């Protein structure tokens, strides 16, 4: 009997210590923001016919910077509203987990951005409009999966959709040259737009609305 409560106490301590390390910011608004910007950017890229590989890479890097800045502002607002520090230990852990894969994606994109102009058209098109977007999707999936160790469990499944989706599209191969930029914007819109919006809706329906209490 006595060992039961002692073992129970140890279990409670372990659970609470694990819970203390979990990132608790509401993710639904971030997903809505990222999804909306992703969808809008894909539509702009599609209809404005941003078809040169360099322009495509530059355009989506700008969208990424805007999305990150918007997410940062949302996080800051949440932290202020909840009277919590912005750079809390769980936030730092999540950022540290996200960083390696995102940095790898950024470095590859920067190198590509500078080299695409000198490459022949077919190679530039394959790299800029096929390899890079799918690489971004896989890198992003890896980054989110790593951060998922400090976040609620569902996010790892979300990350796997990116990883498997990106790899699957690699396996299916590149479309023909005239339609390649449409394919690239479509894929970006699907993964960084629609999927984020869908996950945002899921989170909105399931996340505990702690800030209303």
């Amino acid at each position: 009997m006595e060992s039961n409560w002692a073992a129970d106490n140890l279990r409670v301590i372990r659970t609470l210590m694990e819970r203390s390390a979990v990132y608790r910011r509401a993710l639904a608004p971030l997903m809505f923001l990222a999804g909306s910007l992703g969808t809008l950017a894909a539509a702009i890229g599609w209809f404005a016919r941003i078809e040169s590989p360099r322009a495509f890479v530059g355009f989506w890097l700008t969208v990424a910077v805007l999305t990150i800045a918007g997410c940062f502002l949302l996080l800051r607002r949440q932290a202020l509203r909840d009277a919590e520090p912005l750079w809390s230990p769980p936030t730092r852990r999540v950022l540290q987990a996200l960083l390696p894969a995102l940095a790898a994606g950024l470095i590859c994109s920067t190198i590509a951005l500078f080299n695409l102009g000198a490459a022949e058209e077919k190679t530039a098109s394959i790299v800029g409009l096929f390899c890079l977007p799918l690489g971004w999707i896989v890198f992003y999936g890896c980054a989110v999966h790593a951060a998922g160790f400090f976040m609620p469990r569902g996010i790892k499944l979300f990350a796997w959709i990116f990883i498997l989706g990106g790899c699957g599209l690699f396996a299916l191969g590149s479309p023909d040259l005239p339609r390649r930029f449409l394919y690239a914007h479509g894929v970006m819109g699907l993964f960084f737009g629609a999927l984020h919006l869908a996950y945002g809706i899921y989170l909105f329906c399931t996340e505990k609305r702690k800030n209303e209490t």
Partner: protein
Amino acid sequence: MNPEPFLQLDRVIHEKGRLAIMSLLAASPQLSFTEMRDTLNMTDGNLTAHMRTLQEAGYTSVTKEFQSGRPLTTYSLTAPGRKAFAAYINLLEQIVQQTKSNK
């Protein structure tokens, strides 16, 4: 069964609410008042009372500052608090082991 480990348990930490607070703080360098309140589903008054007891025992320290003009209260474990928490866990493990070996 040897009752000694049970008698040595720190009464300040052994209370359910304070044990929960100590567990959270042991896993994080610092936590804000609202983070702890929301994680533990405690009322403001309840959490304040427990924090006062822990502070009086010298187990936690409080930092009050302003973040963009809003007050921000954060708590962390002190060195004696961390030591007392580790000792408490050791005693719990001893109790569990003792009962297992008596079976």
